[in-house]
């Protein structure tokens, strides 16, 4: 069975759908009237990007890209937490 052959058309097809969603998220990032809107959209963007990265690593057949997906999702979370902390306390560190 030749997975490479199947993936060579499947991954671009799926990626194009993800790209469409990606554009819609970017619309929200640009338009987003308030800070939480922007952050939420950027969250979704980074999760999307994580899926992208995983799909690319399938497409190119290299195992080296996937670890980036994990880090992207973690960074998105950190971003959320820091923005919330900033909103709540107007302060990032501290007790």
């Amino acid at each position: 069975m030749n997975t490479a052959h199947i993936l060579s058309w499947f991954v671009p097809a799926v990626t194009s759908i993800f790209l469409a969603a990606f554009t819609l998220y970017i619309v929200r990032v640009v338009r987003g009237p308030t800070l939480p809107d922007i952050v939420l959209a950027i969250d979704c963007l980074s999760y999307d990007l994580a899926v992208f990265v995983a799909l690319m690593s399938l497409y190119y057949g290299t195992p080296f890209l996937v670890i980036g997906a994990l880090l992207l999702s973690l960074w998105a979370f950190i971003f959320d937490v820091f923005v919330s902390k900033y909103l709540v306390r107007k302060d990032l560190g501290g007790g």
Partner: protein
Amino acid sequence: MRKASYIALAVVGCAALTLVAVLGTFASPNTLSRVRALGEFILYNTFNVFSKRWWAGSPEAVTAVLWDYRGLDTIFETTVLYAAVAGCVVLGYTSLLKRGRGRDEAGGGLTVVVKAATKILFALILITSVNVALHGYITPGGGFAGGSTFAIAPLLVIAAYSTEKVVRMGFRFLSSAVMRSAGLLALALVVLSPLIYYGFVLQNQLKPNSGFPGYPAFLGPLFLGGSLLYLNFAEFLVVGMEFVLVFLAFHFMDKLMGGEGSG
């Protein structure tokens, strides 16, 4: 007027540079399918198990360049980070020997949901970062990547709880500084130890006219990657602890400003 002149300067300068780059270096598409001879030599030889004269014992060419072919750059890059953190501490912290015992957080931090998630993610981050650092000689990653991944963990704790929580978890200024120095000295030890056997500074594998036999690349079936494994781990320790020190110094800087800030 001033602003316009700055814009003109920046645009003209950068446009000129790009023009030169595009015209001069990449005028023909044929050059683009090739890489420079130096890079190609390294790619071919980095894990050339058939003729080990030029090999670095790592299939990861970037790590091989970083820690073996151009290892000195990386040592001093670590020194740059070290000096910068020393500068940060100079600006922000009073005494290393003062115990970082903080007060208990009373209603501090964010909601209990975030705290619970932080606990789970903390372990996940630790495992990931050690994995990234230790597999740096086989897969992309390495000491710096692992160390900066590790830095997410205290950041998360600072955000979800407080800096005091980080201190109470054992990342005291003192212990972080000790671990950083230990990592740096381990780095120096790995780099300098070939000298004992008439080898070269930073030597990894066997070289002609050197008495040092090189760090073992294989231990039976297990692939060790020569000195890259130890260097990566030491770098991981150093970079992770440098980040922790920066966060702590930033926290104590707040207090310093409260104490003597003026103006």
